[in-house]
């Protein structure tokens, strides 16, 4: 079976033009990353800010062109620098952003937000667009009465549901989730993660899940890729990466993640008593 997404030696450079006082500079944001994701699976990309994970997300979503390397979506080579993007390709990959307060247009009603991808990319008539949006609202755990409301009338978790619904309107094969739960409260985070798991089962969706929260990654991912300064320093199945991390950065990352088990807390209190 061909993987939904395959990347071979993907690179992305940003050119910063020089000025009178500064010479031109090239930033290598992603330096040759290879991975593949099978249908219905989740690849988690982990790394600190500035490590190139969002640049990677922009390339996969075909927002930014690739500088070097190959990207295959459903076995088809895509390069937006060479040929313009077709509506068909655009509907295959969709993205959900981190901040649901910033990613929804405050002047548009939820119904308009959900039907807009259909207007742009398909020839679906208006009444069917409305029906599809209504159905999608229910799928993500909202109600039909929410169709005519504005984003400010919703809580953060509900807005993220709207953003997920919008991404699913075009029946994508691949969903890129750029820190989808890091702006949400703990209990809301659990609800959204459950929703994502349910939708994955129902639509056989493939996820590229970008996060810095290792506990979330451990819960949701099948494969994990750890990025550090534009390079993939660790790539393998979840159990491999969490069970036996190879690279020193991965180990640092695990050591830095707060532990909430009772034994760890007891050990910390003991240490504190000894110092005092």
């Amino acid at each position, binding site marked *: 079976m061909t993987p939904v997404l395959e990347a071979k030696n993907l690179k992305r450079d940003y050119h910063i033009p020089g000025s009178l006082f500064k010479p031109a500079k090239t930033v290598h944001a992603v330096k040759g990353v290879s991975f593949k994701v099978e249908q219905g699976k989740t690849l988690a990309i982990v790394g*600190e800010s500035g490590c190139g994970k969002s640049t990677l997300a922009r390339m996969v979503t075909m927002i930014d062109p690739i500088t070097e390397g190959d990207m295959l979506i459903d076995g088809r080579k895509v390069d937006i620098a060479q040929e313009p993007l077709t509506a068909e390709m655009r509907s295959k990959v969709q993205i959900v952003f981190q901040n649901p307060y910033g990613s929804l247009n405050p002047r548009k009603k939820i119904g308009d937000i959900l039907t807009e991808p259909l207007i742009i990319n398909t020839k679906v008539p208006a009444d069917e667009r409305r029906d599809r949006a209504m159905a999608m609202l229910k799928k993500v755990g909202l109600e039909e009465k929410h169709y005519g409301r504005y984003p400010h009338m919703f809580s953060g978790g509900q807005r993220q549901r709207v953003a997920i619904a919008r991404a699913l309107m075009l029946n994508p094969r691949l969903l890129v989730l750029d820190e989808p739960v890091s702006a949400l*409260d703990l*209990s809301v*985070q659990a609800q959204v993660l459950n929703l994502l798991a349910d939708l994955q089962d129902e639509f056989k969706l493939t996820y590229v899940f970008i996060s810095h929260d290792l506990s979330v990654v451990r819960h949701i991912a099948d494969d994990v890729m750890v990025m550090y300064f534009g390079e993939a320093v660790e790539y393998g199945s979840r159990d491999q990466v969490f069970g036996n991390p190879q690279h020193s950065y991965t180990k*640092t990352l695990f*050591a*830095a993640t*707060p532990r909430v*088990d009772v034994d760890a807390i007891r050990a*910390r209190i003991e240490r504190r008593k000894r110092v005092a």
Partner: protein
Amino acid sequence: MSLLEVKNLTVEFQTASGPFRAVDGVSLKVDEGEVLAIVGESGSGKSVSMLAAMGLLPWTAKVTADVLTFNGRDMQAMSDSDRRKIIGKDIAMIFQEPIASLNPCFTVGYQIEEVLRIHTDLSRKARRDRAIELFQSVGIPNPEERLGHFPHQMSGGQCQRVMIATALACNPKLLIADEPTTALDVTIQKQILDLLMKLQAEHGMGLIIITHDMGVVAETADRVIVQYKGRQIEEADVLSLFSAPKSVYTKALLSALPENATGERLPTITEKLTDAEIFAGAVR
């Protein structure tokens, strides 16, 4: 005697649809050398209660409390100028967004020396030496050079270190850290928390950490207060909170942690709990 003692604190805001009670009957105590964590989801009134205790809320907020004392002095009866002498000196605060809480128009050195100029009678030279010493203690490399930098020239983690250095400038007795690591990466978060704990132990200050992150609580606190919608739900020492939570809300919150998940799905008990059930299950 406790360092900070608050009894039955209530904060109300006037809104178009009548008064809104952001904090409802919160009581807390912090002793010297103690780390208290206040944990709650957004809108639980954890930041507002601390801002109210420090008198930093705008006049639109109505603050009432039976007792509000710092080091035995009544903060409510105090004049504004007396309170300003305490705030920034004996009580210091670190805010969530390190880059936003520094003034972009001044160098970080100016901003840290400003605190010293207002609260101490050190000379210009002594202030500069103290600033360098503080930068060293929070782990900023090349402090002499760094003092002349502007906030935009530093990373988020470095800015948070500057904020901590500024807060520690006058050796405060109580440090309030409002979501000190929320905007930072996990590796930086670890460094900042370790630094806070180290400085707390060295100076023997009282430390209040406001957070929504159970991980931060587990890594730092001695005692924990759980808040929900402005009310106190549970107060316990950190070990009993995590090993045997008493209130339904704390139980639900801990079960929603991905680390504690057993199956494919995370339990979302809070979704089903009504406010009345949560408040009824409160353990004080």
